[in-house]
C-alpha cells in the first residue's frame, strides 16, 4: 500500500521530467531579455529623446525668424563649433609662426648689434574659444578653492558648536540668496581699490570673477559641512571621549571623516553653483572666459551670433556635467561610504 502511494507520487514527477531541462533555458532567455531591456532603457531611451530633441529643434529653427535671419539648427551650430575649433588651431599655427620669425629677427639683430638687448615681444593674437574655456575653468576653480577654504572650516565650527552656529546663521541666511550680479560690482570696486601690486599675478577681472564665484558658491558647502558635523553619530564622539582625544585629533580623526560624505555633497553643489555664477560674473567683469565670449558674440550681432552662443551653451552644459562627475569620482575615492549620497 505504501509502495503504491510512493509510486503515485513519483509518477507525476516522472511525467513532468521533460519540462525540467527547459527551465534553465527559460531562465537564461529571461535573463537575456532582461539585460536587453535594461540596455535599451539605459542607452536607447536617452538616444531616442536626444533624437526627438534635435528634430524638434531643427523644425523650430526653420520656422522662427529673428531680425538677422533664422534661428540656427543643430547642423549650423555643429558647423560653428567646428569653425571655432579650427580657428583655435589656425591661431596656434600663427602663434608658432610668429615666434619662429621672432627668433630669426632676434638672431639677426644680435648679429648686427652686438651688446644690445632685443626687446621681449609677446604674441598678441586674440584668445580663441579653447583659450576662453581654459580661462573659465581656471577662474571657477580658483573661486571654488577660495570658497571651500572658507566654507569647510567655518562649517566644521558651526557644526561643532551651537553658539557659533547661531552666530553665523543670520549671515548664512541673508547672504545665501544674493545674486552674483549684486556681489560683482562690490567685489570689482574693492578689487580695483585694494589690489594694485606693481607686478600683478592675476588680472583684476579674473580676481573679481573668482571672488564672486567664491562668495556665491561657498554656501552649500558651509551648510552641508555644518549638517554633517552636527549629525555625527554620538557613538563616535563617545569613542573620542573614552580615548580622551584632544580637540584637533578629535576633529581630524573622527569628526572630519564622519562628515566627509556630507562635505562632498556640499562641494559638488558648490562647484555646480560656481560654474553657473561664473558665466554671469565673466560677462560683467569682462574676464576673458566663456561669459565674455557669449557677451562679445551678442554685441557683435553677426549672422553667426546665435549659433556661436549656442555652441557656448552646450559647452557650458557639458563642462558643468563633467565637473559634477569629477567631484563624484573624487568623493568615491576619499569617503568611506563610497559616495552613496
Amino acid at each position, binding site marked *: 500500500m505504501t509502495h503504491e502511494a510512493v509510486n503515485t507520487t513519483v509518477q507525476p514527477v516522472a511525467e513532468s521530467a521533460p519540462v525540467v531541462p527547459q527551465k534553465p533555458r527559460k531562465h537564461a532567455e529571461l535573463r537575456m531579455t532582461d539585460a536587453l531591456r535594461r540596455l535599451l532603457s539605459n542607452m536607447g531611451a536617452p538616444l531616442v529623446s536626444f533624437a526627438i530633441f534635435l528634430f524638434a529643434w531643427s523644425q523650430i529653427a526653420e520656422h522662427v525668424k529673428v531680425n538677422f535671419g533664422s534661428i540656427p539648427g543643430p547642423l549650423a551650430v555643429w558647423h560653428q563649433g567646428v569653425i571655432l575649433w579650427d580657428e583655435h588651431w589656425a591661431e596656434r599655427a600663427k602663434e608658432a609662426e610668429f615666434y619662429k620669425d621672432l627668433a630669426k629677427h632676434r638672431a639677426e639683430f644680435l648679429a648686427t648689434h652686438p651688446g644690445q638687448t632685443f626687446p621681449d615681444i609677446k604674441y598678441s593674437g586674440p584668445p580663441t574659444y579653447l583659450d576662453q574655456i581654459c580661462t573659465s575653468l581656471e577662474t571657477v576653480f580658483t573661486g571654488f578653492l577660495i570658497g571651500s577654504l572658507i566654507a569647510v572650516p567655518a562649517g566644521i565650527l558651526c557644526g561643532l558648536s551651537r553658539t557659533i552656529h547661531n552666530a553665523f546663521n543670520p549671515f548664512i541666511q541673508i547672504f545665501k540668496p544674493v545674486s552674483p550680479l549684486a556681489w560683482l560690482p562690490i567685489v570689482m570696486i574693492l578689487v580695483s581699490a585694494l589690489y594694485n601690486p606693481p607686478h600683478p599675478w592675476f588680472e583684476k577681472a579674473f580676481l573679481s570673477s573668482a571672488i564672486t564665484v567664491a562668495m556665491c558658491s561657498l554656501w552649500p558647502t558651509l551648510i552641508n559641512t555644518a549638517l554633517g558635523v552636527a549629525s555625527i553619530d554620538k*557613538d*563616535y564622539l*563617545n*569613542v573620542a*571621549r*573614552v*580615548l*580622551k*582625544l584632544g580637540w584637533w*585629533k578629535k576633529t581630524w*580623526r*573622527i569628526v572630519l*571623516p*564622519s562628515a*566627509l560624505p556630507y562635505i562632498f555633497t556640499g562641494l559638488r553643489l558648490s562647484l555646480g553653483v560656481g560654474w553657473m555664477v561664473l558665466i554671469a560674473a565673466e560677462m560683467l567683469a569682462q574676464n576673458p572666459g566663456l561669459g565674455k565670449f557669449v557677451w562679445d558674440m551678442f554685441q557683435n550681432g553677426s549672422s553667426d551670433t546665435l549659433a556661436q552662443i549656442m555652441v557656448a551653451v552646450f559647452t557650458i552644459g557639458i563642462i558643468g556635467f563633467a565637473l559634477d562627475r569629477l567631484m563624484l569620482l573624487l568623493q568615491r575615492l576619499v*569617503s*568611506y*561610504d563610497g559616495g552613496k549620497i
Partner: protein
Amino acid sequence: MAYLELKNVGKGYGVNGRRTEVLRGINLEVKNGEFVAIVGFSGAGKTTLISLIAGLIQADAGSLLLNGSEITGPGRDRGVVFQNYSLLPWLSVFENILLAVEAVNPNWPAEKKKEHVEKFIALVNLTPARDKRPAELSGGMRQRVSVARALAMDPEILLLDEPLSALDALTRATLQDEISRIWQEDKKTVVMITNDPDEGILLADRIIPLSAGPSATLGQPIEIDIPRPRDRKELNHVPRFKEIRREVIEFMLHSKGAQHAAVSKKLVLPDIQPEDLSVPRISMGARHPPVRRNEIKEENVEVGP
C-alpha cells in the same frame, strides 16, 4: 578596599515635572581583579549605569569612586566595549585599534605600536581580517574588534555594555568562551552588563540583578562559587547553577511584577478611506468619514498586576 565603589548613585533624565528617574540608590563594590556581571531587563537603565562608570554622563546623586578618587569624566584607565561596537567605519580593524593605542601611548615608537595592535588582533583571532573595514565584518567579528580595542588600551578596568546581546546564539557562545579565556589570561577587573542571566553566571565571579526600571536599583549580589573553568554544557547539570539562576530570575521578575505592565504600540493600518453609509450625505459626495483607527496612531494596552 574596593577598587570601584558606587555609593547611593542616582540618575534621571528630563526636566522637573516630567522627569523619569532611571537609577536610584545604586550601591556597588568591585574588588580589584574581580569579574562582576549585572543582569537586568532591557530598558532598565543598564547602559546608563555603565555610562556613569565610564564617566560619559554625570550622576545626579551619590558618588562614584575609582581607586579612591572621584570619577569626573572618561579616562584611559577604563576601557569600554559599547553595545553597538562603535567602530569607526572609515578605519580598518588595524587602524581602529591603532587609534586607541596611539591615544594611550603617544610616545611609543611606530614599530612598538604596530606590534601591540597586532598582538591584540591575534588575541581575538582576527589576524586574517586585519585590513578589513567594519562594514565588511560580521557582527561577531565587529564585537571582537571592539573588545580588542578596549583591551589594547590596557585599561585597569574593562566595562562591557551588553557586548553580546546583538549576536546570534552560536556566535554569542563562542565569544563568551573567548571573553572567559581572555579574562583568565590577564585577570582584569571587569564589569559586564548583560540581559542574559546564564551568560552572567557562566562568566562572572559575582552576579548582581538590577530591578526593572524606572528607578531601578541593584539587588543582593550573589557569589558564583562554581569552580572555573566552567563548561557551558556541564553547567546545566550543576545544582548550584540552577539555584543562582532561579534566585536572579526571581528577583528580576518580582521587581517587574511590582510594576504596572503597559505596552503602547504604534498602529499602522492600510490607508484606505472607509465610509459610513448610514450617515446621510451633506452635499454631493461629501460624508463625514468615521474616525479611523490609524488616526489614533497609538494604542495603550495595560495589564493589571
